């Protein structure tokens, strides 16, 4: 009987030892990291928040390649105060990195950063990187400048407009970058700018675009998230062009969206998240990346682009080349109407 018992126990003990060995080997070769994502809107908004979420997934895949298992959680549609509560909650639960992918969450990031020094907070478009808080900035004014240049080139009435979500930081850079690009293409052009104070209110975005169309504009640039659907409805009804931003939205309204001023937000988010998890972010350094760093491209709607003069496309491509090479530097303008004060000759010769 004893012998029999021994033979029964031996396989169990072996299995236990093997299990412990496997566990200790895994602990030696891999580590788990918890990372949270708090965007402005929803991770499936087809625009800003989804682009950031794509970057989070890319970071997870990249880290898996070096043996790091990144656990990803997210919280959607939060107000700035709710975002701070969520950020603090994640930090208190031991999350290594909390990504706040909304410019209005800057205070939330700085406040939570002071309370939880062991957690890294990544905040998009904020004034500075300090301590355990890093800001990452997609310099959207670059590609918006190109969008404005294209809009001015295709406008038949020398009037174009931009409908933007909020008058703050990178959204204003976008709107003013667009107006500056239009002015660069045609110094006499009339440009309009409307803020709707919403990322989602498609009805208001439609009326804002309609107001610009009523004022004479025939190309409207979207600097909003999901609300852009309202802009496309207005331009489609008027037979005008729209230019999308952040992601390729040409197929959403193929009869009116002439091009999408895309930003490789996923690349930027992936870079900073991987850097944070691997403790490779430089203290105090803001990570600002524009077209020269691979953030920003123009995707033309081929069906509509065929109707444009060949010179327009070639001029736009030449401009993109100048900005990517660093020959042209587009300023970040934070004041509505500030585009008028920029010395065009200081940008670069045509």
């Amino acid at each position, binding site marked *: 009987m004893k012998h029999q018992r021994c033979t029964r126990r031996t396989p169990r003990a072996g299995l236990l030892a093997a299990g412990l060995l496997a566990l200790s080997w895994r602990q030696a070769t891999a580590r788990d990291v918890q990372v949270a994502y708090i965007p402005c809107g*929803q991770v499936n908004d087809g625009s800003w928040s989804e682009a950031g979420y794509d970057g989070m997934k890319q970071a997870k895949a990249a880290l898996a390649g070096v043996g790091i298992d990144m656990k990803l959680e997210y919280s959607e549609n939060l107000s700035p105060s709710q975002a701070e509560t969520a950020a603090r909650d994640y930090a208190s639960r031991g999350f290594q990195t909390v990504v706040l992918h909304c410019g209005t969450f800057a205070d939330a990031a700085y406040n939570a950063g002071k309370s939880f020094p062991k957690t890294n907070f990544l905040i998009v478009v904020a004034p500075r990187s300090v301590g355990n808080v890093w800001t990452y900035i997609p310099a959207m004014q670059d590609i918006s400048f190109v969008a404005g240049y294209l809009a001015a080139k295709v406008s038949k009435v020398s009037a174009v407009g931009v409908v933007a979500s909020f008058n703050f930081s990178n959204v204003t850079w976008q709107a003013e970058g667009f107006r500056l690009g239009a002015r660069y293409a045609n110094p006499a052009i009339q440009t309009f700018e409307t*803020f709707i104070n919403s990322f989602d209110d498609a009805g208001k975005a439609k009326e*804002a675009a*309609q107001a610009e169309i009523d004022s004479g504009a025939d190309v409207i640039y979207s600097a909003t998230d999901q*609300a852009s659907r309202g802009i496309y409805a207005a331009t489609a009804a008027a037979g005008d062009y729209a230019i999308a931003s952040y992601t390729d939205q040409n197929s959403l*309204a193929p009869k009116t969206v002439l091009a999408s001023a895309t930003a490789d937000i996923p690349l930027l988010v992936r870079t900073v998240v991987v850097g944070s998890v691997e403790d490779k972010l430089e203290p105090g350094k803001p990570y600002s990346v524009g077209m020269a760093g691979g953030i920003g491209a123009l995707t033309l709607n081929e069906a509509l682009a065929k109707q444009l003069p060949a010179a327009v496309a070639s001029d736009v491509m030449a401009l993109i080349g100048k900005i990517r090479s660093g020959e042209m530097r587009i300023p970040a303008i934070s004041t509505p109407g500030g585009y008028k004060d920029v010395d065009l000759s200081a940008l670069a010769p045509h």
Partner: protein
Amino acid sequence: MTPSAMLSLLFWVPLLGAGVRIATPLLFAGLGEVVAERAGLLNVGIEGMMALGAFAGFALAVGTGDPWLGLLGGALAGLLAGLLFGWLTVLRGADQIVTGVAMNILALGTASLAYQMRFGSSRDVPELPALAALRLPWLSTLPVIGRPFFGQTSIVYLGYLLIPLVWLLVERTRWGLHVRAAGGNPEALDSAGVSVWRVRLQAIAFGGALAGLGGATLSVAQVGAYVDGMIGGRGFIALAVTVFGGWRAGRVAAACLLFGMADALQLRLQLVGTAVPAGLLVGLPYLLTVAVVTIGAGRGGYPAAINQPYLRRRARRPARAHPANAPAGALQATHQEIKP
């Protein structure tokens, strides 16, 4: 565009048209709230009901290819949400404010969840051609007001029709008398043998249906797409216009137009380059909301039994609901006591 452009009709005529468009979803929701509040039900959950209507209407319009079926579906979704609100507040006696807040959370969350399940990503939300404008013969050629008021889509004209219809329904029909009694003096209505519960449930179903139609108007008829969060506070503005309009259909319609005009004006003032900061201009409709609610609060005049559950299990029925069987002067008192 310069501020001098404001001196031209080319500035004001399109602005008036935009004001009418912006006012239309508010009008539906506001007229529905008139009926609900006159019956004694303060429906704070309009925002959520509009969101449900916007999603259900859009999904049905995409599925069937018929925008009118979509609008009908939006109204139906609002009606069901209204009945849920009614079940909780009328039959279960729950507090109307708390229930309304809970309804907002529930309905907004349901719409959001259904949206994610149906479409996954906004990239997959198809484009639905918005309703085309229908210029009414002769009327649309009237100077100044012709195009803004009569060069709109059919859904706007449905809104115009509802203004006198709701007025007639509430002020000039027997059912309207019951509705006013349910909100002004439910005991008298009960004494007359009419079920307060039934009247209130009918009123909130009507109000919910119109809130749903208001949401569907936005997604199906105006934008041609559903976007999560697109209601953008319109439900709360509808609550404010109901108070500002003194619970009268015509005045509520005028209040909706005022809000629509204010919103259209702020969008255009941003273009003419006034010295007023854009942030302040964008807040104009909301500042107006605060102002009118303050004015409305000062005037009083809420239906006497609003937010008061009528918990009598069954209405005591006389042999027949004949005036002779009702307590002396019950219905006559109702006529006098409810707000004119």
